[in-house]
C-alpha cells in the first residue's frame, strides 16, 4: 500500500451521465497488501458504478470481517458502509433492504466469512432471493488471521501456515448457489477486469440475489505452488464461457452490434444484457445446462467463469412479500399509526 493518493490516475477525468468522474467513486486508500487481488476487485466495482452512472449515495456497502470485508472502505466513499461482524453480512443486508427497497445493496464478503461462519446466512439470503449483489472475494484462505485454510481451499492445496494439504474437499460456492436456487450466479477472476466489470454491472441491475464468486489470490498467504487459488494456477486453468456487455436501455439501438452468435436477455428492470457465447450451445438462462457445464468443468478440473446462470423472471423480494412501493424507512406516524380509534375497537374485542 502507499500513503500518497495517486491523483495522477485519471488524466482528463472524463465525466459520466450524472456528471461524476471515476474519482468520485473511489474510497480511502487501501491498507491491504500490495498486489492483493481484493484491490483489483475494488477497482472493478469503482469502474462498474462509474460506467453505470450510479449515484454513489444510493448504494449501501455492507460486509462482514476480513481483508475482503475491509474493501468497502476503499471504494464508493460517498456511499454509506457497514463493516458488520464476521459471517453476518447477509442478515444485516436483509434488514437494510427491508428498511429501504430503493437503495442498491452491494454485499462484500470473503470465503471464510461466507463459506465457514457465514454459511447459514449465505444459504438463506440465496433462498430469499434478496435483491442484492453478493461478491465473495475468494482467496481460499483466511487472510486477516494469517492464512489458515478456508472451506474453499482446494483439496491438496498448500497454505503457508501449517504447510499441510487440506484433507477436506473444497466448497464450491457457485455450485452451492445454483443448488439453493440463486437467480444470478457468476464466477470471475480479480485480474480479469474485462470480464468482471460487465458482470458486476449486470449483477447490480439484477432484481434479485446476484452472486459473484470472484477468485482473488492472496499474495501474502496463498500464492504458493500447488495452491489452486494462486495467480499462476488460476491463470492457467481459466475457461471463459461468455463475455458480456452491459447495455442500458437508452442505448438499445446498439443491440444490433455483435448480432449473430450473440443472445440478448431481457432483464426485469427493463435493461438487457448481451451475451457473446464461446460455446454455442450454452444458454445462461437454462438452469439445467448450467448445472451440466459446472459438473463438466469440475470433471475436467477447469474453473468455469462468466455468467453461469440468470433467471430473467426473478422478482424483487419486496414484490414477493407484497410490501408498499415507498421505502418503509420513509413512512411516518400517519402511515404507521392506526390511532386511538382502532385501539378502542381492539380494547372492545378483549372484553
Amino acid at each position, binding site marked *: 500500500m502507499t500513503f500518497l493518493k495517486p491523483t495522477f490516475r485519471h488524466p482528463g477525468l472524463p465525466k459520466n451521465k450524472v456528471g461524476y468522474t471515476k474519482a468520485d467513486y473511489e474510497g480511502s486508500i487501501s491498507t491491504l497488501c500490495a498486489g492483493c487481488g481484493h484491490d483489483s476487485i475494488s477497482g472493478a466495482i469503482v469502474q462498474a458504478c462509474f460506467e453505470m452512472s450510479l449515484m454513489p*449515495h444510493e448504494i449501501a456497502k455492507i460486509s462482514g470481517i476480513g481483508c475482503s470485508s475491509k474493501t468497502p472502505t476503499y471504494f464508493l466513499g460517498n456511499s454509506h458502509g457497514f463493516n458488520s*461482524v464476521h459471517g453476518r453480512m447477509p442478515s444485516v443486508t436483509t434488514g437494510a433492504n427491508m428498511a429501504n427497497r430503493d437503495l442498491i445493496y452491494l454485499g462484500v464478503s470473503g470465503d471464510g466469512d461466507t463459506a465457514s461462519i457465514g454459511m447459514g446466512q449465505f444459504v438463506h439470503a440465496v433462498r430469499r432471493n434478496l435483491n442484492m449483489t453478493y461478491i465473495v472475494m475468494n482467496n481460499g484462505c483466511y487472510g486477516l488471521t494469517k492464512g489458515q485454510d478456508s472451506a474453499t481451499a482446494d483439496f491438496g492445496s498448500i497454505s503457508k501456515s501449517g504447510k499441510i494439504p487440506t484433507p477436506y474437499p473444497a466448497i464450491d460456492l457457485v455450485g452451492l448457489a445454483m443448488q439453493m436456487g440463486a437467480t444470478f450466479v457468476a464466477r470471475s477472476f480479480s485480474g480479469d477486469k474485462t470480464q468482471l466489470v460487465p458482470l458486476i454491472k449486470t449483477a447490480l441491475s439484477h432484481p434479485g440475489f446476484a452472486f459473484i464468486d470472484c477468485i482473488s489470490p492472496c499474495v501474502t498467504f496463498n500464492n504458493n505452488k500447488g495452491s489452486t487459488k494462486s495467480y499462476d494456477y488460476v491463470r492457467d486453468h481459466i475457461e471463459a464461457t461468455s463475455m458480456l456487455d452491459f447495455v442500458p436501455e437508452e442505448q438499445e439501438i446498439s443491440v444490433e452490434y455483435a448480432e449473430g452468435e450473440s443472445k440478448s436477455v431481457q432483464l426485469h428492470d427493463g435493461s438487457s444484457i448481451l451475451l457473446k457465447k464461446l460455446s454455442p450451445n450454452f444458454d445462461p438462462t437454462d438452469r439445467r445446462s448450467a448445472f451440466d457445464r459446472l459438473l463438466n468443468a469440475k470433471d475436467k478440473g477447469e474453473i468455469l467463469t462468466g455468467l453461469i446462470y440468470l433467471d430473467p423472471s426473478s422478482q424483487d423480494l419486496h414484490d414477493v412479500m407484497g410490501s408498499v412501493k415507498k421505502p418503509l424507512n420513509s413512512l411516518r406516524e400517519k402511515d404507521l*399509526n392506526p390511532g386511538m380509534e382502532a385501539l378502542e375497537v381492539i380494547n372492545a374485542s*378483549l*372484553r
Partner: protein
Amino acid sequence: MKNVKINDMVIRFANVNGTGSASANDMFAKAIFRMGIPVSPKNIFPSNIQGLPTWFEVRINGKGYLGRRDGIDVMVGVNPHTLKRDIASVQSGGYFIYDSSRKLHAEYMREDIHYLGIPMMEMCMEHYSDPRHQQLFKNIVYVGALVALLNMDMEVVKNIIREQFAKKEKLIPPNHLALDLGFNYMVEHFDCPIEFQVEKMNGVGDKILIEGNAATALGAIYGGATVMAWYPITPSTSVAKSFETYCKKLRIDPVTQEKKYAFVQAEDELAAVGMVIGATWNGARAFTSTSGPGISLMSEFIGLAYFAEIPAVIVNVQRGGPSTGMPTRTQQADILSTAYASHGDKKHMLLFPSTPTECFEMTAQAFDLADHFQTPVFLMSDLDLGMNNHLSDPLKWDDNRKYNLGKVMSADDLETKEFGRYLDVDNDGVCYRTIPGTHPTKGSFFTRGTSRDEYARYTEDGKVYARVMRRIRKKWETAKSHVPAPEFYQKENKSNQGIIFFGTTTYAALEAMDMMKEQGLQMDSMRIRALPFNQEVADFISSHDELFVIEQNQDAQFRSLLINELEVNPSKLVPILNNDGMPITANNIFNQITKGILVN
C-alpha cells in the same frame, strides 16, 4: 349451613394437552370476567404438543388480587394420568370434580375433601354421535357443571358461545346442550351452589383481558416498527404471531392492499437480530422478540449495536433457565446476562413491564429510547406476563404523540452543519447520525464494530478509543432522566424498611404488602421500571435501612444489578427469591420477609 366464600377462590383444571380443553377453560375465565369479577387465569403447560398433562389455574378475587395464590379450592380433574397428585393438591375442605364414567380408585379417596363425580364421557356418548364431539364436549360439560356449583350466570356463558360461533351458528346448540347437561346433572345430584361462589360485581370497570405478548406486538405497531425479524421460541413466539396478525388488520394500504411492514422469519436468532440492526442502521424502526437462548446467541451482535451505536429493540420473554431449562415455565433470570450481554465494557438499557398495558406502552417507548440513544433497548417480559391473559387497563394512545427518531441529520442539515458521526455536539453523549441515501456528497460514513474516532475513521490510538468509550458512558448518564421512573405506593416514605420489585412480581408483592399491613408491618415500596436506574431509585434506597428485593430467580440477579449500578452496601438489600418456575405468591413473600425480620 356453609360459610359461603364469595368471589374468592382458586380453581384448577387438570387436562391432557391437545384435547381442546384450553378453549373451554378460557371460556370459564372469560365468563367470570364478564360477571365483573377480577380474575387471573394461568396456563401451566408442558413442552410438547399432545398427550402430556397440562393445567389451567384460575384465581378469582373480588379484592382484585391477581397474583398466584397457593391452595386449590376447586379442582376439575379430567386427566386420568394425574388423578393422584391432582387430588392431593386440593386443600382441605375443597372440591374435586371428576368424570365418574370411570370409578375412582379407593386409594384416591380423601376424608377431608368433597368429591363431585359427573359421568361426562357417558353423557357425551349418549348425546353426541361424532367421536370428536364426544371428546370435545366433555370440556363444555364441566363448564356447565361449574356454572351450577359456583352459581355463575349461565346467560353470560351462553353468550360467549354465541359470539364465538357467530360464524358457525350450527355449533351453538350442541355447545349449549353440553352446558345444560353439566348444569342439570349437578343441580340434580348435589346441593348447588357449593360454598365457593361467584357473584356479579363491578370489579373490572373498563379493563380488558389480554396477553402481554399481544400487547407488546400492538406496542410495536403503534410505536412505528416496520420491520420485524424473529425466530420461533417459546414463550416469545406469540409476539411475532400477534404482530403479523394485527399488521394484517392495521398495516395494509387500503388502496393497494400492500403491506406497510416487513415480517421476516429468520433462519436463527443471530440472523434475526442482524436483520434488526441492518434495518435500524438504514433508518427503519425494527425489532425482534426472543427468549433466553436467543439472547445468548445474539450476544455478539448486541455488542456491535452497542459500540457502533445502532438502535435496536429486543423483546426478551424470559423463561426458566439456564440452557433449555424449563421452556414452559416463568422466571426473571436473564437480568444480568441481558444487562451485560456481550464481551468487553458495556451496559444495556432494560425496561421492566409488569402488565400487558405496560408491555404496550413500554414497547412503543422502547423505539423512542433506542432511536434517541442509538443503542439496543430490551423489554424484559416473562412467560407469565407474555402468555397468560391479564386483567389490564385498556390500551391508550395519544393521537398527537410524535415519534422521537433521535438525532438524525437531513440533507438540509448536512448543507448547513458540520457532521461527525461520533461528535458529542450537544455534550450529552448522544451524537448525530445520517441515514444511507440522505445526501449525494455529504454525511456518508463507515459503520464498524472496531475503535474509531469522532469522524468514524478507524483508529488504533488508545487515547481516542478511551475518549469514545467515555463519551458512550455519558449517554448512560443522560438516559437516567429519560427512562421510565419507578412507581411508589406511598405518598412519602413512612418506614425505614422497604420492598423493591419489578415486572410480574408486582401482583404478589402488593398483596404481600397488604398482608404485612394487616400485621401492623408498615413498609415503603418501589417498583423499578428501567435500567439505568434513575435518581429516584437511588434516593429511595439511600433513605431506607433495610430493603427486601423480590425477584424470581436463584441468584438474586436484580439485587446484584442494584449493588453494581448504585454502589449500595449489599448488607442493606435482603434477597426474597423464588425460582421454581411458577409465578411467585404473596404468601411466599410474606413468609420470607416476616421470617427475615424475626431473624434480625
